[in-house]
């Protein structure tokens, strides 16, 4: 069904972006309101479309024809089905809350209009990504969010460290984009179309030869690793915490990083062409999730903890993708968006309240001075740890339960190991999240400022997200997976597993272990903490050094590249290009001085030239001969 409301979904934030940017300094006060209104309009449109979805089946709208040559035509088309609906509701809904929060958070920043313009542009790009009907259209959104994340992470670009964090995110994303382009090339070559509705049909996918199927699946996954910060491209995400905190919440919790998961779910047919691809995805995700969780345990910056936690949770979503439980991957995207956005925004409130202090060693005891934030952070922490009936439990344990159900022959022999590691990650998650909660909100205040509660415009969205983090999972759990039966495979198969009351208790056991360990080590018995630090010294070193991934890049890629550039710079640039350029310059200068003699300033000479030229012109070009 065609509906122009769909165009408005994308256009509203786009118009907001242009408007706030053009108004510039003159819109200091209202830019936040404009931007938020734009996103809310978009949200309402999505809502109204979503309400009509059961009768309509799907919506589509053609914005314009983008490319058309030869036998190829690429219209800019949007497509709205149940899968896009879920993503759109998350993007616009949580996006709107974050916009409102930003009004308070950025209240003292001079360049607010620029900030809100970028935020709106980001939402627009993300909506193009999830609504695009063909892979090239999705790619526009894909690149758009990459660009916006670069702009937003480097928002305070006067600080060179922040600016370079933005660059890093940009470059890492480009590596993933190569995968996307390769995947598009392969798919177009074999299937003759890039339309996602066409690519969803099994008979079309059957045309892909076996060896190309593996390449296409892996290329798509490479694209997803860039955007969703999986091993080995995850280092940009923690660095990206340089941006303002609402940006972290929007990009790194709720929207952009989940683009990879969306792509996997949307292209599940391609991913599963060769069953080696899901296996690769699973092992990569498992490693990413475990490494990120271990690193998160030793971080002292509150935002860094959340960043590594995000990487870890993204790994969890990809575990679900790897075992074929796309429904649970999407479900975890949604619940994760709830509690991680809430965590980031609460952390933002804490940072705001502590006068831009991010180090947890100089916090503590903030429960007294900012009770609302403490409450929000607390419930979200429980949610992410995975205690029923909080939201995180349902999606996380859905994934854990789905692991044994995979039919992948590459994974069958390893199911026990996979399950064990995944459960271990759950323990670690509960541990490091409660560590951050205890360090921040409990005990005695260790800083020198006077922390204060955030203003209403910030706490209201945080509390709304907290409510979602509490009840969202339990509320959505029975309806979410059946809802996605159409667009996704095997969801009914997964939805069939219902744990009893005993299952809930057993399921929350790993989380409880982690929580207990955190309380014991950080609140009750500091001596035990010292003991464990000594015992696990090597792991701690690895963790504090962030597994030295950055250093490995430094040695393996950057240093050789720099050496080569130095040599080529000295030899090729200096002698060849510079010398050659200079010679060219000299020649043209000499020629110029020669020809300058012609312009004598004598009218007579000019007339002679003109007359001769006219004669020659007539001679050569007179049509009748």
């Amino acid at each position, binding site marked *: 069904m065609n509906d122009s409301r769909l165009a408005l979904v994308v256009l509203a934030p786009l118009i907001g972006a242009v408007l706030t940017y053009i108004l510039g300094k003159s819109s200091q006060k209202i830019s936040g309101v404009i931007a938020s209104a734009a996103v809310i309009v978009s949200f309402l449109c999505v809502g109204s479309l979503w309400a009509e979805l059961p009768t309509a089946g799907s919506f589509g709208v053609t914005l314009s024809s983008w490319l058309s040559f030869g036998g190829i035509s690429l219209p800019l088309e949007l497509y709205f089905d149940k899968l896009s609906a879920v993503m759109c509701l998350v993007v616009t809904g949580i996006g709107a809350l974050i916009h409102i929060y930003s009004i308070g958070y950025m209240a003292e920043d001079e360049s607010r209009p620029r900030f809100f313009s970028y935020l709106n542009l980001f939402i627009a790009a993300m909506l193009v990504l999830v609504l695009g009907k063909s892979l090239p259209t999705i790619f526009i959104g894909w690149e758009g969010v990459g660009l916006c994340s670069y702009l937003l992470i480097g928002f305070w670009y006067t600080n060179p460290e922040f600016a370079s964090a933005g660059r890093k995110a940009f470059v890492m994303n480009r590596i993933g984009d190569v995968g996307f382009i390769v995947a598009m090339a392969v798919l177009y070559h074999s299937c003759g179309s890039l339309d996602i509705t066409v690519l969803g049909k099994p008979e079309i996918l059957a045309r892909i030869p076996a060896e190309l199927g593996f390449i296409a699946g892996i290329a798509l996954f490479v694209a997803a690793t860039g955007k969703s910060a999986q091993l080995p491209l995850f280092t940009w995400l923690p660095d990206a915490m340089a941006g303002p905190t609402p940006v972290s919440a929007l990009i790194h919790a709720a929207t952009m990083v989940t683009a990879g998961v969306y792509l996997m779910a949307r292209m599940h047919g391609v991913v599963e062409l060769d069953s080696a691809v899901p296996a690769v995805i699973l092992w990569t995700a498992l490693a990413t999730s475990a490494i990120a969780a271990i690193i998160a345990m030793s971080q002292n910056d509150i935002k860094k903890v959340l960043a590594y936690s995000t990487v870890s949770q993204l790994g969890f979503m990809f575990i679900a993708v790897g075992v074929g439980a796309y429904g649970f991957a999407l479900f975890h995207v949604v619940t994760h968006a709830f509690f991680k956005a809430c965590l980031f925004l609460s952390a933002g409130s804490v940072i705001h309240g502590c006068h831009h202090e991010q180090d947890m060693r100089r916090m503590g005891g903030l429960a007294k001075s900012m009770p609302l934030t403490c409450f929000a952070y607390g419930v979200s922490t429980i949610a992410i740890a995975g205690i029923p009936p909080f939201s995180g439990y349902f999606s996380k344990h859905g994934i854990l339960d789905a692991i044994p159900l995979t039919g992948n022959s590459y994974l069958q022999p390893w199911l026990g190991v996979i399950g064990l590691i995944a459960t271990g990650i759950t323990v670690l998650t509960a541990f490091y999240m409660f560590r951050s909660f205890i360090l921040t909100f409990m005990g005695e205040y260790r800083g020198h400022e006077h922390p204060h509660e955030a203003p209403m415009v910030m706490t209201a969205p945080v509390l709304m997200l907290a409510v979602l983090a509490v009840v969202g999972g339990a509320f959505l759990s029975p309806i979410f997976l059946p809802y996605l039966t159409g667009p996704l495979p095997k969801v009914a198969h997964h939805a069939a597993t219902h744990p009893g009351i005993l299952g809930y208790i057993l399921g929350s056991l790993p989380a409880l272990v982690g929580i207990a360990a955190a309380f014991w080590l950080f609140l009750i018995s500091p001596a035990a903490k010292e003991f464990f630090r000594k015992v696990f010294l090597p792991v701690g070193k690895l963790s504090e050094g962030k597994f030295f991934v950055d250093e490995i890049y430094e040695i393996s890629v950057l240093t050789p590249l720099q050496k080569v550039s130095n040599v080529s710079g000295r030899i090729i640039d200096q002698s060849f290009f510079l010398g050659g350029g200079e010679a060219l310059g000299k020649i043209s200068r000499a020629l110029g001085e020669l020809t300058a003699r012609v312009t004598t*300033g004598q*009218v*007579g000479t000019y007339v002679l030239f003109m*007359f001769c030229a006219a004669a020659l012109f007539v001679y050569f070009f007179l049509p009748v001969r």
Partner: protein
Amino acid sequence: MEPVISYIGLSALLFTIGGIGLCLRRNAIVLFMCVEMMLNAVNLAFVTFSKLVGNLDGQVAVFFVMVIAAAESAIGLAIILSVFRSVASIETTDSAELKW
């Protein structure tokens, strides 16, 4: 009977003479007169073709050429006057400021 070519040939000849004069003279007023002569040569061609084709469009064009020539003479002579005021000469070789 008059062959049309005789008038077109006359027009071309006058145009060429004017052009050569334009190249070889250095008095600005003479140059101006040469330009007028070239315009006239073109006018003659217009009138001839107008006769040939049998409508008045060519003659109307000549009329407009005359209007332009009149305007041009007013401006051109004024420019020659003001050049003379600053250089004390109307020979084109004496005012060669506009160069590299």
